[in-house]
């Protein structure tokens, strides 16, 4: 997310020398100053605080500002850290694959199989409207749908597809993934749709002209050119899932762990330094994932 910041100084640098003011070399930095201030106050300082607290000591009467590594040692000393990370990463992976498949298909249909721009707009809005409803409400609305006596089970039993309610539908990893996909699919659709709309239509004709079958057009033209959108969507979805604790807790019926939940449980008993240590590790993990994504795909064009 630091990319916009990087973009501003370089943009400013291009215009500043032309002006030829007194301090031409300082101008770009001056122009970028407000942004850096905002970033500093709302991003860097809080994170620095978390990092700092992660080295503090927890005491009855409050936090003792020392420098100890115990919190980190505690994090790595237990098996639960690894199982939890594994479980969270698995959720992230499954949700990523699902939202990518759905998001790409939906964006593809919208961008290439809807004739008029008006219909494109209307259908896009149709996809977007549910996302204006509270995430919490959308999340819990799955519960009456999937429950033992829920809409889906009643329907399945009514249709004699099954004779007893399917229990795995709710309070299960399935429910968690389903809800995640429901909550975050649009975060994949929007950036991919965006990049797809920017693909020059004559590129597709050029590919067809060269003898590409539709599937090859997809593989050799549309997918490579949609990569920046896919990367942005991936960053959205992966970071959202990695940081989540509400969805996992609600939809698994509290029976599944996530790193966020781990941290939250620690916070709930005021174990701030341990929670901070966990948060730092989670932050590093997510940053590494984002860095890896950016290594693979250049998204600057999109920003």
């Amino acid at each position, binding site marked *: 997310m630091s990319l916009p910041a990087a973009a501003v100084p370089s943009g400013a640098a291009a215009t500043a020398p032309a002006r030829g003011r007194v301090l031409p070399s300082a101008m770009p930095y001056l122009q970028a100053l407000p942004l850096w201030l905002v970033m500093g106050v709302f991003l860097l300082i809080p994170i620095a605080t978390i990092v700092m607290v992660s080295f503090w000591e927890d005491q009855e009467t409050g936090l003792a500002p020392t420098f100890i590594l115990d919190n980190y040692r505690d994090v790595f000393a237990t098996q639960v850290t690894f199982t939890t990370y594994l479980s969270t990463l698995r959720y992230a992976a499954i949700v990523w694959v699902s939202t990518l498949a759905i998001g790409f298909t939906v964006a593809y*249909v*919208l961008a290439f199989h809807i004739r008029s721009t008006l219909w494109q707009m209307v259908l896009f809005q149709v996809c977007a409207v*549910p996302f204006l409803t*509270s995430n919490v*409400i959308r999340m*819990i609305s799955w519960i*009456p749908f999937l429950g033992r006596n829920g809409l889906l089970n*009643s329907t399945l039993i009514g249709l004699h597809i099954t004779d007893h309610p399917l229990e795995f539908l709710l309070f299960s990893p399935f429910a968690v993934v389903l809800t995640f996909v*429901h909550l975050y699919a*649009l975060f994949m659709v929007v950036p991919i749709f965006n990049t797809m709309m920017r693909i020059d239509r004559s590129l597709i004709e050029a590919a067809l002209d060269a003898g590409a079958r539709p599937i090859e057009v997809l593989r050799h033209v549309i997918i490579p050119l949609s990569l920046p959108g896919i990367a942005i969507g991936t960053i959205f979805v992966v970071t959202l899932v990695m940081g989540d604790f509400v969805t996992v807790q609600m939809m698994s019926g509290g029976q599944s762990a996530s790193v966020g939940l781990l941290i939250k449980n620690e916070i709930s008993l005021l174990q701030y330094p341990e929670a901070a240590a966990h948060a730092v590790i989670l932050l590093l993990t997510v940053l590494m994932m984002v860095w890896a994504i950016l290594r693979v795909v250049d998204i600057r064009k999109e920003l």
Partner: protein
Amino acid sequence: MEKSGPRHWLLLILFALFVIFLYGPTLTIFILSFQGPDGGLTFPMRGVSIYWFQNLFEPQMVGDFGGSLERSLSLALIAPSLVGVALFGFSLSYDEFSRTIMAAGSDNTLPLEVFAMTTNVTTPVLYALGSMTTLFSFAVVITVTLTVLAMRRKRGAKLAG
């Protein structure tokens, strides 16, 4: 791209399935919000009425939504819709409730209000709120679309004339 043939229709069907997937749960809560005064958060339905919608707009009933609707909801909902963007921001701001809990000052925000509801409201008033939000969003989208259409037609007429 070819816009006919089986592949085209298959893709359109997939798209339709996605839309159904998006709206399925919304439909569930929409149905459940029409329960009678004894209604709960789950099936089976207990009676049919618009009790919970009335409840939503009456102050002094469970959880004062009259007030919060006026304050936070109208601001949070209408302002971004008028601006027309903020889809991400807004959707995310709901998710912020967890962070709001940790950081909010003494004023109640809508996310907090909603969260409070999930904590101690066992009635479909929550669903009524969700249904209203969706309907409201729809109204905004339709209005915007029609406006754009009208403007386009006007401009078209001007060009033709």
